[in-house]
């Protein structure tokens, strides 16, 4: 058994509060934009620093935990920084810094209105995300999950155009329904087990629920987390939400919000049901069918999109299901692949969105068919785009290769050749919807487009950084941050193996 040793510490709470405190500060500095953005950056750096202090303990199998007030008899608002939580928090908070820098360039370059509301909502979203990462029980998770929905709503409707308002309605309709279905599942778990605490290897083992009840319960949870993780047919809000400013699409709709959904899948599979129960009630099959078909369908739909951000959105839908499908394999390597892909996709997709934003803010082009020859004008941007695209297609030496390698290993370990085939076909589809963009930008000449120079350094530097990181993590997965070791620990925890 590999149960993390829990010790009391308020660090997880401070990680949440770092950006929560930034909200009033940002609102107060609304008249001094430079100070306001400084608040964001300080909060982002502080948040990452706090999360980093939790990493060594997570590596040593120790988890910082704190119980705040009781919110229902016997259930506290409780935070616990276990390995999976630290892993997710690390990615989200590190990328928040990069995105903040990028936002400054993008929002100012674009002359966007209501920037105070933008930065305040952004900080609140990050606080909710870290809250989700560190939630120690289902009710706390649900609380932050709903808070995230509310915090991101102003970001989706940011443009206040009719399209944005429609997208906002759609987002709320999907996300609130999901939250309520999740709530029903949570209530059921509580009545069945008397506890809501996440437990590595599953908390429902002793609940005495029969297989059919488990299936219904699993479906409730899957609808609950499936909306945010874009599992088809619950994905439609995501392409619609692309109307939001690009930094939002980059961090929230490629990392924080959608990854909260995927993180939820890992929690549900690994910490509520557990691999044994999943296999016993054939829940893995339900998950695999939905995720597998999502991967293929989303990739096919992505092929047909001319709008760059929409193509990226469908690609996101597909890659999120990589993670869910990896979890459905119920093998150590599958869980490792899932967690690694959570990080890998975050880095690569944020790069791609940054590129799309840089193109838009500099040239106001949104469609792929308009990008002819732009690669010569914006070599750094399109270079980074190429790296992200190669990574998502799963080519070495990028981090997308490492995660996909483990996902395929997981499929082999589980003896699931169909799933292996899905991963491989999807790789080809990824290549076929990403490479034409790069080819068009570099190889087709269009003199009108070549007069543009590179975009402002505020937007180009972050995207180059994330692209470089994608390469670095592909070659040395553990060098900069112990992503790989953490993934190993998480998988071992879920599979209840002794630490190696």
């Amino acid at each position: 058994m590999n149960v993390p040793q829990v010790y009391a510490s308020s660090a997880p709470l401070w990680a949440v509060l770092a950006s929560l405190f930034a909200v009033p500060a940002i609102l107060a500095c609304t008249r001094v934009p430079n100070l306001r953005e400084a608040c964001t950056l300080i909060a982002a750096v502080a948040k990452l620093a706090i999360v980093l202090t939790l990493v060594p303990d997570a590596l040593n199998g120790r988890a910082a935990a704190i119980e705040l007030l009781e919110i229902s008899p016997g259930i506290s608002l409780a935070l616990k920084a276990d390995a999976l939580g630290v892993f997710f928090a690390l990615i989200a908070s590190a990328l928040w810094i990069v995105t903040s820098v990028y936002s400054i360039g993008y929002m100012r370059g674009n002359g966007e209105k209501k920037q105070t509301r933008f930065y305040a909502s952004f900080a609140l979203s990050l606080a909710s995300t870290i809250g989700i990462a560190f939630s120690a029980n289902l009710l706390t998770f649900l609380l932050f999950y709903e808070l995230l929905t509310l915090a991101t709503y102003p970001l989706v409707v940011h443009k206040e155009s009719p399209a944005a308002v429609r997208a906002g309605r759609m987002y709320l309709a999907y996300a609130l329904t999901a939250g309520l279905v999740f709530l029903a599942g949570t209530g059921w778990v509580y009545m069945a087990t008397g506890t809501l605490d996440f437990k590595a290897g599953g908390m429902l083992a002793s609940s005495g629920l029969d297989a059919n009840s488990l299936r219904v319960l699993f479906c409730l949870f899957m609808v609950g987390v499936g909306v945010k993780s874009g599992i088809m047919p619950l994905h439609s809000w995501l392409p619609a939400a692309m109307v939001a400013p690009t930094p939002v699409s980059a961090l929230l709709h490629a990392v924080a919000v959608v990854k909260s959904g995927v993180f939820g899948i890992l929690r549900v599979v690994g910490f509520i049901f557990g691999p044994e129960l999943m296999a016993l009630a054939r829940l893995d099959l339900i998950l695999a069918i939905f995720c597998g078909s999502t991967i293929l369908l989303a990739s096919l739909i992505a092929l047909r999109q001319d709008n760059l951000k929409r193509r990226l959105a469908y690609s996101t839908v597909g890659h999120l299901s990589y993670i869910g499908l990896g979890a459905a394999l119920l093998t150590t390597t599958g869980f490792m692949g899932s967690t690694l892909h959570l990080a890998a996709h975050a880095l690569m997709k944020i790069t791609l969105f940054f590129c799309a934003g840089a193109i838009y803010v500099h040239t106001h082009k949104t469609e792929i068919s308009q990008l002819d020859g732009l690669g010569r004008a914006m070599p750094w941007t399109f270079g980074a785009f190429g790296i992200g695209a190669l990574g998502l297609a799963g080519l070495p030496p990028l981090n997308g290769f490492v995660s996909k390698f483990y996902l395929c290993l997981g499929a082999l370990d589980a003896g699931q050749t169909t799933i292996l085939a899905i991963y491989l076909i999807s790789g080809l589809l990824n290549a076929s919807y990403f490479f034409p963009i790069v080819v068009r930008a570099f190889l087709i000449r269009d003199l009108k487009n070549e007069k543009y120079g590179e975009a402002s350094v505020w937007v180009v530097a972050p995207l180059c950084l994330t692209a470089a990181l994608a390469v670095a993590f592909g070659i040395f997965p553990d060098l900069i941050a112990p992503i790989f070791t953490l993934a190993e620990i998480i998988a071992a925890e879920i599979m209840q193996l002794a630490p190696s």
Partner: protein
Amino acid sequence: MILGHLAVLSIVFFFFGALIIPLVSRLGGWVPHAVAVATSAIVFVINATNLGYVLSQGTIRYALGGWQPPIGIELVLDPLSSFFVLLLAGIAVVVLWHSRYPAAAELPGRTAPFYSATLLMLGAFSGIVLTGDLFNLYVFLEIAALAGYALLGGGSARAAVATFRYLIFGTVGASFYLLGVGLIYLGTGTLNMADLSAIMAVTGVEPLLVIGFVFIITGVGLKMALFPLHLWLPDVYASAVSSSTALIAPLGTKVAAYILIRILYFVLNPDLSRFQLPFTQVLGILGAAGIIWGSIMAIAQKDMKRMLAYSSVAQIGYIALGIGLGNTYGFIGAVLHTLNHACMKACLFLVSGNLMAAGRSQSIDELDHSLRKSMPWTSLSFTIAALSMIGLPPTAGFFSKWYLLLGSIENSAWIYVLVIVASSLLNAVYFFRVIERLYLPRGEAATEEAPVVVADNRLSLVAPVVFLAVLLVVLGLGNVVVVRQLIQPMLPAGF
């Protein structure tokens, strides 16, 4: 000395205030308002003391005028009744504080009768909650109703018509109640609740008494606007003076809900009303139907106050559902929801009052995003209260729904789970429609912004609304304190 009379003080103060207002109103236009707020505040303090005393020392029974029960009238201060009196005094303080300008504007020259009737009604509400005598309850019910007709009818001509309808319905309800009391007196020879309970424990509940209780529950259901007896409510709430609505909407129906709890779980043996007679099952089903019906009708409304009124029908459904579940979580959910809904509805109706005070229309279509600049605090408070009505954490509304959900699951009543989930979504539809109007411009045209006239400028208009909105978050995060300290001591026997 006076400590021996704690139980009766709430009623005495309210009635005394009601009588003194016409006398002192000549001293100045502000006096009736001040007296009303002061009276409510005093009653609030008294009842805070009472509740503390009752929780630590046990139930207080007070024989009115020294006449011993079962002959004389008895007032009972137990955890349940002290909680409800405290709640209604608390809401009264906040709403009456807010009412200063709206009441003066909407009832020019008639504020003295308004406040006098208000205190009369509050006194009668306290009487309903405190009394331990079925017939005395009827008397207070009628006093409250008469004062209520005056409050609701005093406004536009439409209000008079709507109130006349309410008067007919209310009278029918009261008659049902009285008929039931008569039958019970016929069967047992007593009107005292404790005595009645003791007699029924020995003799059992014969058919005559069952019929009596059915009459009582029907009558109370009408007063509570329990689906399908809610028809009087939307018109009355929508056309009345905003301060009257803001006071009666959170409190009036809650008092009726209190009577139901008292009769079903304290006068009757809880096991009887839960398992042997179909009282609670029927209540649960009607509650669930009311939740869905009220929510759907609320979506169809164009007028803010009518929308809130139909939403009240739905929220009363939650309380009925909780009572009808007949288990601990259901009971906790129902009582907690009376508290939460009282705060939410008061907040929302005060917001509608603020709109009216700012010369805004109540039509939802005419709300626009200039309000986010001109009434920032009002808009924000509306948003928080709306989130609580939808039931999103960490606001209070989430937690009462959470307990109701747990209660439904405990009974394996999956259809109720579905109802709770579905109604939250319906709530989201009609509340986000308003929030969208408040914060987002419509269409592309609305780019140039008109000069902003800040309408959130009077403390007495803004502070109560903001206070209630903050309270909703505090009540949400601190709900365990309320559940542990206040609601668990009032659980009926056998739960």
